[in-house]
Structures are given as C-alpha cells and as structure tokens.
C-alpha cells in the first residue's frame, strides 16, 4: 500500500523536478552565467537536500516501476512477495540515492 502511494508521490515530485530541470537547461543554453551559480547552489546544504530528494524519487520510481512491470507479467502478485519487494525497493532506493549523491559530491571535490 505505502509503495503504491509513494509511486504516485514520487511521480508528481519528478514531474515538478523535471520541469525545473528543463528551466535550468533553458537558462544554461543562454550562457555560462546561469550554469555555474546553480551548480554551486546544488552543493550547498539546501541544494544537497533537493538533489537527494530528486535522486531518491527517481531511483524509487524506477525500481518500483520495474516492480509494476514484473506484476504486469503476472508474477510476484501474492501478498507476501509484494510486501517483500516493496521493502526491498524502499531499502535499495535509499541506499542507491545516498551512494549517488555522495559519489557526486566527492567527484565534485
């Protein structure tokens, strides 16, 4: 149940996050003046929070989407398996999002 609500919530979050990303791309296409300040902001505490939120939403929605495709194939539909895969997706998405943001921050230096 929780994973179903979270799939919609992350979908809506990604919808708005992607709209922001498109606006940033548009600004970046105007020249360097917009690109580097936004990059610096993303390394600030608020920026890292936003990056982590978007990354977690993207990883969760992708992994839970694969779970939906697995269901569409008629597999994993019993309650016990569905609960287990829901927990696995929550845990894996948090782990992957922490890893991705940490790797990005350390690559940035």
């Amino acid at each position, binding site marked *: 149940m929780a994973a179903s609500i979270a799939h*919609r919530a992350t*979908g*809506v979050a*990604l*919808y708005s996050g*992607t*709209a922001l*990303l*498109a*606006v940033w*791309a*548009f600004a*970046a*296409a105007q*020249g*360097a003046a917009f*690109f*580097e300040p936004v*990059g610096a902001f993303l*390394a600030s505490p608020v920026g890292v929070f936003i990056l982590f939120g978007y*990354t977690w939403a*993207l*990883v969760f929605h*992708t992994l839970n*989407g*694969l779970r*939906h*495709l697995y269901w*569409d194939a008629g597999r994993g539909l019993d309650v016990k398996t569905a609960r287990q895969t829901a927990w696995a997706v929550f845990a894996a998405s948090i782990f992957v999002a922490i890893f*991705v943001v940490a*790797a*990005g*921050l350390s*690559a*940035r*230096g």
Partner: protein
Amino acid sequence: MTNKGTANFIAQRASAALLAPLALWFLWSAVAHAGVSYEEMRAWIAGPAAAIPMGLLILVGALHMRIGLNDIIDDYIDSGARGVFKLLNLLACLGVAALGLWSLYVLSV
C-alpha cells in the same frame, strides 16, 4: 475511450521500460560530470553518446509524465473539471519537451 485507455496503458509501460535504463544513464552521467565547467558540460552534451540518450530521455520522459499525471487526474479530479486539468498537463509536458529539446540543440551546436 476504451481503445485510448488501452493505448495509454501500453504506452506507459513501454515508456517505463525505456526510461529505466535512461534514468540510470542520467544519474551515472550526473555523477560523472558533477562540478564540471560550462565548457566541459557543452563538450560532453555535444557528443552523440550524450545527445542521443538525452534527447530520448526528454521525449519519452515527457510522454510518461503526461500519461502518469492524466491517470492521477482521472482518480482525483471531478469529471467536469478533468478536461481543463488534462489540457494544462498536456501544455506543461509539451513545454518540458520543447524547453529540453531546444536547450539540447542550442547546447550541442
């Protein structure tokens, strides 16, 4: 309406299957290019290995966003107001695709 619903059902799953690897590629690229200068970012996006998956991600992502939010509108919005919300959703998704593709073009030439 039934045919449209079926087409959307299939399109949402086909786009999900395409978006899963594209989302992983996007996260990997973001980590690999964290903190690069404006010139380095442009040099990266100008290559076909980045521009082609990015273009696909924008197009398929905008389609997936539209169908996903339309499904949410069907569930939560009163039938009389649905048309307006779906039109706004279409315009927002077209806007994301147009901003994204135009920016990709400008940044890669």
